[in-house]
């Protein structure tokens, strides 16, 4: 990590085109010591974003910095302090986990053997196990062990929990929260499991069809989004509210979804003749779906 680095990573105006997909004008930053959840449906551009960040593919426009190093030009230096695990990554099939542990330990000065042994027990995997004989979940655990025990400054995880059973997933998320107790360590965590993201992340970014839909800290997502149930008497027409993401009208009942909730909104609605009957907080999954639907509608219009 360079001395002047204040951010784990920063992508500015990054674009990358493939034959059938285009990631466009991506702006994303993660301060040191935080966990960012990158949430998006399949094919949204999560893996492309991560591969750009790791220097595996080069952007066509924009700039990328990881721990103060320009990527892809200085990706090899940046990767000395970055660990990356992906759902579609595999270890070398002709070797055992123990061989991989020795292999990685030789390359990384911060390799923590005691921690690696602890993780072996936590994850219930064996060092003498060959990679060919490992189940999908065991394989992911093995890769996570190799990533965590090198004590990286930035941990980049692309759908890491998808092959794990609930217990292993719980253990992994607990480990990740332990890691960021050290304020100089950061995690980028991509997933379409919003429960995992909601549980551990400080920052959340929604991505869909190659566009960044929204990115902010988790608390402001949770605080700003509400679903408001309304009693709308016959003859009352609700005005077009700029803060409404969605408005579903029934015969007399209406549901308004907003991403800029303030108690003052009650007054505005009641002035229009509607009565607020209920105000519900939304889960991250509901916020994600509403954000994506709005973004798609905006693109289409």
């Amino acid at each position, binding site marked *: 990590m360079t001395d002047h680095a204040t951010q784990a990573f920063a992508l500015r105006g990054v674009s990358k085109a493939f034959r059938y997909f285009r990631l466009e004008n991506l702006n994303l930053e993660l301060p040191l010591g935080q966990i960012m959840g990158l949430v998006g449906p399949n094919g949204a551009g999560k893996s492309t974003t991560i591969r750009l960040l790791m*220097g*595996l593919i080069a952007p066509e426009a924009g700039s990328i910095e990881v721990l103060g190093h320009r990527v892809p030009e200085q990706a090899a230096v940046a990767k000395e302090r970055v660990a990356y*695990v992906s759902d579609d990554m595999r270890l070398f*099939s*002709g*070797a055992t986990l123990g061989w991989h542990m020795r292999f990685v330990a030789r390359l990384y000065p911060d390799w923590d053997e005691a921690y690696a042994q602890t993780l072996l027990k936590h994850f219930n995997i064996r060092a003498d196990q060959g990679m060919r004989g490992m189940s999908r979940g065991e394989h992911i655990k093995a890769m996570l062990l190799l990533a965590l025990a090198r004590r990286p400054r930035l941990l980049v995880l692309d759908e890491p929990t998808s092959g794990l059973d609930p217990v292993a997933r719980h253990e992994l998320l607990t480990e990740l929260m332990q890691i960021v107790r050290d304020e100089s360590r950061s995690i980028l965590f991509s997933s379409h499991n919003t429960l995992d993201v909601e549980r551990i992340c400080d920052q959340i970014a929604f991505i869909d069809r190659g566009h960044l839909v929204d990115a902010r800290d988790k608390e402001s997502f949770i605080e700003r989004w509400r679903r408001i149930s309304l009693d709308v008497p016959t003859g009352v027409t609700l005005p077009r509210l700029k803060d409404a993401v969605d408005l579903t009208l029934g015969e007399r009942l209406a549901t308004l979804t907003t991403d800029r909730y303030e108690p003052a909104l009650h007054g505005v609605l009641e002035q229009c003749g509607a009565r607020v009957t209920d105000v519900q907080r939304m889960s991250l999954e509901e916020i994600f779906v509403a954000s994506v639907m709005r973004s798609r509608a905006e693109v289409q219009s």
Partner: protein
Amino acid sequence: MKSSVFWALVRKDLYVLRGFMIITVVVGLASLFSMRFGRAGFAVGGILFLTANVAGGIFIAMYSLMTERKEQSRLFALSLPISGYKCDLAKLLSGYLSYGIPWLILTAAGLLGFLLPGNAAERGMFVYGLVLQLFILAVFSFVIAWLFIVKSEPMAGIAIMVSNIGFSLFMVSLNQPAVTRPLRTPQITWTPFASWALAGELIVITLSLVLTIFYMSRQRDHI
């Protein structure tokens, strides 16, 4: 960084492929030995020797590159602190080493056989052996270069098809009496055919290497 990632990746491939390397050498040496036992032994040993050389090369190239891509362990290698270009370079070097070491042992053993006192009557066949072995190395160089450039399995299959056809045609031309007769002498004789063949083989090997490295250096996306 405690140790060079480049050399760690080269050593890794040699470790993973150590079994194939040992099998290639053992089968190759055993086949050379069996060639000393009459005409049948010579024929069986010869076929086995060529199989160990040619199939070993194609197998190592295919396993080293295609399997790693298919199994997605390449992504793990690229996650290490190394540039995509150097990662590819390490793969190319390890490919040449994992095939080149057994090839060198078998070529040396085979050619030495022509130089032994008991085989003095056919010492000239040293040239035949050298032309054949370099052709096999050229086939390996072509296959590994092709596999670096193409990404799909059907396209990789074309390399095997082309090398099979090329090898068959080469063996037919190499075994023409007009080619082999001048070489069945007690002296080592560099016939025009042998000289041209050697030159062609060296050109193919060099071109394959240079073009592969040039192609790697131009790559911006490594996955």
